[in-house]
């Protein structure tokens, strides 16, 4: 089932066309990866799906409703690149506040602290945590409402490999429970962890397939090589 449906999406910001006529969908029950160099429009695309980005043309529908409509607000978890949490509140206070805003059971706070492996830090002020820990607080906030669509903008930047593996397991766990998980990254080696890949460059989707199929089509061994191959083909 399609969680997100995008058709003919264009976004112009400050006179530059950031997204150029995108059409694709994000399925539920899968982890969909959005890969591309930084500056290619990944964040703008994610913001459009969450409904905080003003769009120029086209349509973005989430679970059949227009992106940004009030009914969707409790069903989407969005993690921005820079962690959006209160630095002067503890991990627990941050989560308790957002839980109250979402109106979810306070018990979710414990569950989400455990999910991102911050039990030892729960009484610490967020501003004193390491960069990776702070982004995990931000991730935990996004998971509070048990969202049906989870949009994660480069969630694994700067994390150690063990934790990165664990987080990807968490993402797959959420997808197995039926959520649509949409993750961006500029690290190509994370591509293999996705069920489906969208490769993006200069505001366009240049490939949309499973990692294995992409490698096969391009006759390459690594996603990075596949990406280069596709760019070369697009340019010729």
């Amino acid at each position: 089932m399609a969680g997100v449906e995008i058709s003919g999406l264009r976004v112009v910001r400050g006179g530059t066309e950031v997204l150029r006529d995108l059409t694709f969908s994000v399925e539920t029950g899968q982890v969909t990866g959005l890969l591309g160099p930084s500056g290619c429009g990944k964040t703008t695309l994610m913001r459009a799906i969450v409904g905080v980005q003003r769009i120029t043309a086209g349509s973005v529908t989430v679970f059949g409703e227009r992106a940004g409509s009030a009914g969707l607000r409790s069903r989407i978890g969005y993690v921005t690149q820079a962690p959006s949490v209160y630095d002067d509140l503890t991990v627990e206070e941050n989560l308790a506040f957002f839980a109250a805003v979402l109106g979810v059971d306070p018990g979710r706070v414990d569950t989400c602290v455990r999910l991102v492996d911050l039990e030892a830090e729960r009484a610490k002020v967020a501003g004193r945590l390491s960069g990776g820990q702070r982004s995990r607080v931000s991730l935990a906030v996004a998971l509070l409402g048990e969202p049906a669509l989870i949009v994660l903008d480069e969630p694994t930047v700067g994390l150690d490999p063990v934790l990165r593996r664990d987080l990807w397991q968490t993402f797959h766990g959420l997808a197995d429970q039926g959520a649509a998980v949409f993750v961006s990254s500029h690290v190509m080696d994370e591509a293999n962890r996705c069920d489906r890949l969208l490769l993006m460059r200069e505001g366009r989707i240049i490939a949309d397939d499973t990692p294995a199929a992409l490698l096969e089509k391009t006759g390459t061994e690594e996603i990075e090589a596949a990406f280069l191959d596709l760019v070369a083909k697009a340019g010729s």
Partner: protein
Amino acid sequence: MNPRITLAVTRRVLIQLRRDRRTSAMLVVLPCVIMTLLWWMFQDQPDFGFTALAAALLALIPFIIMFLVTSVTTLRERTSGTLERLLAMPMGKGDFLVGYALAFGLVAAVQSGLAVALSVWALDLDVAGPVWLLLVVAIVDAVLGSALGLFVSAFARTEFQAVQFMPALVIPQILLCGLFIPREDLPPVLHAVSDVLPLSYAVDAMRKVTAHTDPAVWGDLFLVAAFAAAALVLGALTLRRQSD
């Protein structure tokens, strides 16, 4: 709007303030220090000076402080991405604004409560009217300051810029509110300008409470509250769920 969400915002802002011990201490202690300084200045003067100025100061202090505190806190909220996150959640703009107004109104109540208590009982401020009315004026005034601070934070990109709005919006009001020259004695144009500035009415209200046993302050108070409500509406317009 939803009371659960509004109160969650209020609670959170108060926890943040409490965590910042230095700011909380200054919020409580500074107004008392300023009132004491003013009292000391007029020690050897005929007794009228302190009372007239103290009333004006009791109106100015909560306004200025809450203006500054709110403009910086909400600017932080805008730049850290937490505001965008909240607006992507089922939070009404009213919840956010009223949550803030409640928190800072409460802080202003404590702050002004102490300053008024000190002035009345320790510094012998003559209050002809009911003392509690001084507090009511101070709280409405603080909410006005918060609302304006919230509004201007939309036009600042950095905390430096936010702080610059203080002299721009507040000092002219201090000059024209009747503290230096009675408003009636101002040149006609400036008098007319002072008629549309909210602080003029806040100071008028404070002065009436100290001077009259049965002060007619509800008109002034209503105007200050109306300005605060208008500033909150303007503030709501700056909270955008979508941006470019």
